């Protein structure tokens, strides 16, 4: 059955992948595991693909409700009783919608309310009232309850012509009337917002995005979710909110062990929200993970925001040892072994992603998900990047979030589709040694920090050469 799905007008790239991940979680694709795990979508006529209005085909109302209620970006999913380009057409459509679909929601013992909504303009209270009164041709028998109604009906106008809502204007006015099936609980976001979090780090993940990551990873009770760059635990908090067991590692012991005191550390961030504590936190190096030989397929999902060297740089073991020829090989004297603080070396993005994919290929269950951010330098309007590939994984979603004029981060969702074979393991080992041998070379290549912060990149010369052309596009939707 087709439902109207209205999204919040933000994080545009994240909307459909979130919806489809949840559809998968609630079993929409169970009967047909070979399907591409994507739903059937349809845009209302004349709508821009970035429009918040989409029709989606779902097998049942129950599933539609589950998806909508768990999502972060779905404002509402509606069973449409009628639509039209004028109120007369709408009336005709609603009247011809089958009674057996309408009457169960209009019974005398029920409570209801009608909400008038639009996109990109405000409708005055007076106009709202008159529009609601105009719906009196529907035989409502129930009692109006504005606070806590059983049934919510929505009257939505998509007439945003001449209004500035960030999208190209829609030519035709469209009015929808429908019954709400479900919608996101946005109250989660103020509850979990970072400014009320006790323990924060410089790169703590924003609560909304953390929830989106947990949804992409399909976190739920009984599942084990791992974050190899746990930091203050901001991503795992979202996974724990959805009931998953969590586990995190970080190379910085001050963050995972000490925090800022007994009531301000990673554990307290979970306690603050009454969430299940992580199964474990440990200090470990993603470059040399301490997992026992033979351990594999234990995590259901790996979610992380790897350090890619723009706001925070990655570190790995080895330190001075890797600076061959600059300092001699380092041996810790026996009497200084206890309490020795090993030096660490910078960790290049390429190596970090390689290690992450290898770890995920080995440690994820088949069908498990790897969800992580990948940075992209951007100089054109189209995103044309080769994302990391791995023979065990299939990339199912890439959601871009522009961070500045120069660079974006893209949330990649990869599903493990193949087993971790001996050949793959051997190839990864060889690559690991290559990174270690040529540490300095890899560090110089792809230095993202310079590209993002240097003043000459995409500088004024570049703009002058295209003089006459407006350097800033009027519409860059993904900024939303």
């Amino acid at each position, binding site marked *: 059955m087709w439902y109207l799905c209205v999204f919040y007008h933000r994080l545009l790239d994240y909307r459909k992948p979130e919806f489809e991940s949840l559809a998968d979680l609630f079993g929409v694709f169970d009967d047909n595991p070979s399907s591409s795990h994507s739903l059937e979508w349809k845009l209302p006529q004349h709508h821009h693909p970035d429009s918040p209005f989409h029709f989606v085909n779902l097998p049942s109302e129950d599933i539609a409700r589950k998806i909508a209620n768990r999502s972060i970006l779905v404002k509402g999913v509606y069973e449409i009783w009628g639509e039209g380009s004028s109120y007369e057409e709408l009336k005709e459509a609603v009247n011809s919608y089958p009674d057996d679909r309408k009457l169960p929601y209009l019974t005398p013992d029920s409570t209801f309310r009608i909400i008038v909504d639009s996109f990109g303009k405000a409708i005055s209270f007076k106009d709202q009232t008159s529009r609601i009164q105009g719906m009196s041709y529907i035989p409502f028998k129930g009692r109006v309850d504005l606070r806590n109604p059983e049934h919510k009906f929505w009257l939505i106008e998509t007439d945003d012509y001449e209004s500035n809502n960030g999208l190209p204007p829609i030519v035709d006015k469209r009015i929808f009337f429908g019954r709400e099936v479900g919608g996101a609980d946005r109250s989660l976001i103020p509850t979990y917002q970072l400014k009320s979090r006790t323990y924060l780090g410089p790169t703590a993940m924003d609560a909304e995005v953390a929830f989106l990551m947990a949804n992409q990873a399909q976190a739920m009770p009984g599942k084990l979710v791992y974050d190899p760059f746990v930091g203050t635990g901001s991503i795992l908090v979202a996974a724990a909110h959805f009931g998953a067991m969590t586990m995190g590692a970080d*190379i910085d*012991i001050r963050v995972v062990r000490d925090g800022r005191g007994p009531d301000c550390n990673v554990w307290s961030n979970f306690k603050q929200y009454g969430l299940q504590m992580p199964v474990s936190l440990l200090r470990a190096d993603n470059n040399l993970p*301490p997992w*026992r030989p033979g351990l594999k397929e234990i995590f259901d999902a790996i979610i992380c925001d790897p350090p890619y060297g723009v706001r925070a740089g990655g570190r790995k073991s080895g*330190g001075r040892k890797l600076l061959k020829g600059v300092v001699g090989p380092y041996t810790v004297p026996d009497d200084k072994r206890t309490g020795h603080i090993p030096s660490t070396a910078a960790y290049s993005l390429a190596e970090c992603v390689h290690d992450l994919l290898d770890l995920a290929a080995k440690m994820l269950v088949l069908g498990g998900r790897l969800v992580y951010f990948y940075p992209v330098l951007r100089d054109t309007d189209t995103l044309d990047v080769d994302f990391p590939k791995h023979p065990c994984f299939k990339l199912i979603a890439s959601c871009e979030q522009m961070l500045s004029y120069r660079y974006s981060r893209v949330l990649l969702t990869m599903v493990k589709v193949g087993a971790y074979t001996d050949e793959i393991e051997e190839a990864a080992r060889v690559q690991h040694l290559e990174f270690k041998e040529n540490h300095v070379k890899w560090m110089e290549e792809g230095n993202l920090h310079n590209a993002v912060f240097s003043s000459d990149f995409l500088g004024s010369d570049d703009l002058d050469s295209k003089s006459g052309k407006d350097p800033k596009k009027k519409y860059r939707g993904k900024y939303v």
Partner: protein
Amino acid sequence: MRLLTHNMLSSNIKGVINGFPLRIEVEKVVEKQVDFNPDFLKNMFSKIDWKALADASKIMGYAELPEEVPDASVLDSDEFLQKFHHALLELHLEEGALVCPETGRRFPVNKGIPNMLLHEDEV
């Protein structure tokens, strides 16, 4: 550190072949209650190295687990699952160390966090 974690970790010092299981040096054990989730336990059962778990829980002062690898049919027994749950998730090594069985290198555990980072000459 819970015993689930202990069961996953080994000493990854360069050249070490048998880095598992790490011997536990106990200074302080605490018990923390964890919500019981049978699905999670059933999931973990096949991935656990049973002997390492049984030995570790004994060192931590809990000797209720069978020595031998139990048959998967025990997963239907609530009593077994409760014991497995307690050993796997509720016993914490708060202070102590994990010792590499081959080299004797101590990986300290402070405030419940194992420090598995290697020294420069161990990588």
